[in-house]
């Protein structure tokens, strides 16, 4: 080997050593607290596990039970329904808010807007849900004002039709600020030259948005949709504190079902199998979104 080659490979080796060393803490923790538990959960899903009654293998029985249980369809459908509504709501409202705020205004006003819309994002879902639970009660604040306006009271959380939309409404209130902030920055990245040229050409504003702005920020829109979907598919507190999954099974999501079965009924193996199914669903939906993005997202 020539001298330079030796030095280069020596450098490469020392860089590799440093690289591995630097990632060791994170990867080790990740292995212990994420990958290993996932593997264990998959293993548990093939067993009946009970600390007091003893455990044994049951093969695919848990999965069989999940796919033949008539409730599973409703629960699965609830999860998808919530995700579709929440993602649409969060991303659309976030985008609209960003478009509305993407204009010149005094600094203190911008500060107020950022605070008002981002504050719900950082407050715990557990807290927010308690407050909104009181708002949504049949004898609560919303109905109080409705009755004062002479309108009939709405069974916000006790009617299957309005329960899920009510929960989504609260979820959008809570999370849309996050997406608004991302979109504001994205909009500011759209080159002014192009938009100004379009204005001078007399292009109407909605067409400007559709043909120029939207394609330009499509990568960010895509990211927002993926991120919102992953979060929505896992939703727990928002639904649990407002309705506990009710009335009946109308708002029960997969994450609630897992917690109820594993920790409530001590059907730990069954709970694990539902958790595995839920993870597969998340991976699948994210995968689909990536494939669709190839066509729609312009980089």
């Amino acid at each position, binding site marked *: 080997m020539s001298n330079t080659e030796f030095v280069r490979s020596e450098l*490469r080796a020392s*860089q*590799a050593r*440093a*690289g*591995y060393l*630097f*990632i060791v803490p*994170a*990867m080790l923790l*990740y292995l212990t*607290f*994420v*990958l*290993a*538990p*996932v593997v*264990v*959960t998959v293993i*548990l899903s093939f067993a009946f596990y009970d600390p007091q009654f003893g455990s044994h293998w049951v093969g695919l029985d848990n999965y069989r039970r999940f796919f033949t249980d008539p409730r599973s369809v409703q629960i699965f459908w609830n999860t998808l329904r919530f995700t579709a509504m929440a993602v649409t709501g969060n991303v659309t409202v976030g985008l609209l*808010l960003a478009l*509305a*705020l993407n*204009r*010149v*205004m005094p600094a203190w*006003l911008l*500060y107020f*807007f*950022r*605070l*008002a819309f*981002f*504050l719900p994002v*950082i407050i715990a*879902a*557990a*807290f*927010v849900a*308690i*407050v909104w639970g009181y708002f949504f009660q049949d004898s609560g*604040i919303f109905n*109080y004002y409705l009755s004062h306006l002479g309108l009939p009271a709405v069974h916000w959380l006790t009617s299957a039709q309005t329960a899920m939309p009510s929960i989504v409404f609260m979820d959008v209130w809570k999370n849309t600020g*996050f997406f608004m*902030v*991302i979109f*504001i*920055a994205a909009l500011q990245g759209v080159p002014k030259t192009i938009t100004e040229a379009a204005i001078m050409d007399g292009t109407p504003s909605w067409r400007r948005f559709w043909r120029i702005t939207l394609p330009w920020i499509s990568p*960010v829109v895509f990211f927002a949709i993926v*991120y919102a979907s992953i979060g929505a*598919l*896992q939703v*727990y507190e928002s639904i649990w504190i407002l309705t506990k999954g009710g009335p009946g099974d109308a708002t029960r999501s997969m*994450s609630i079902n897992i917690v109820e079965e594993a920790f409530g009924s001590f059907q*730990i193996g069954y*709970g*694990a199998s539902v958790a*595995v199914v839920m*993870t597969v669903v*998340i991976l699948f939906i994210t995968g689909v979104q990536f494939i669709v993005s190839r066509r729609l997202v312009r980089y």
Partner: protein
Amino acid sequence: MGITTTQASRWIDRAIISLMAVLGIFMLLPFAWLISMSFRSTVDAYRMPPSFFPTSIEFTNYISVLKASVPFLQIYINSVEIAVIVTVGQLVTCTLAAFAFARLKFRGRDALFFVLLVGLMFPAQVTLLPIFLGFAKVGLINKPLGLALMYLTSSFGVFLMRQFMLSQPKVLEEAALMDGAGYWKIFWRISLPQLRPALSALGIITFTQTWNYYLQAKVLLGQQNAMTLPLAMDILRGYLGSGNLAVVMAAMSMSVLPVIILFLLAQKFVIEGVTMSGIRN
């Protein structure tokens, strides 16, 4: 003479901003109600009409929280302890790993990063159960440290820090490399100082997330003096929810304070961090 287009667009601007202002106030209404409810006397708490501005400032509810059989102060300290440990842990582990992923070349780098990213898609439910069973065997149940241990690193943190690093010029680092500096020195002296906004952003996002954990805390920290604040609310709601909501609101006001203060102090960095995670995907 009609209105000019610039005048029209200025009116539209004003109209939209006014609409947003009204919307902004609506966004804040639940918080206003929360605060005013916390000041309502026990007898008045459930009387309609609801008040959005405190009609009388009474601290009875706040005192009830502190005097309740729930060890509120201890729970507060637990929340702070866990949030601080997790934040520091993530800042350290995620920044180190991000440096390697963003600046160093080594075999399997991109594959390992992808493996890390997959972690973003695992819901808490799929990792919680085995961790609970595992912690039970080693005696880490009902110990705030256990919950902190679980989150000492995060895929999102590594992703975020890597994004920040990639968006920064490599010039200084490459120069230092030419000069023969070791990687640790480069990391410590050059990369890290450039990352201050990123560190603040990740720090606050992590602190807030950890502060707000509910399900994980409920499973791992059942005992009252090991709990965190979101769980304390459940207890304050009393036997089957018959407790006074005003007292719960008072407890909540006290619980959201650290997060709000942190946010106000570093609004700029949080926004930047959130933005950075979204822009460069």
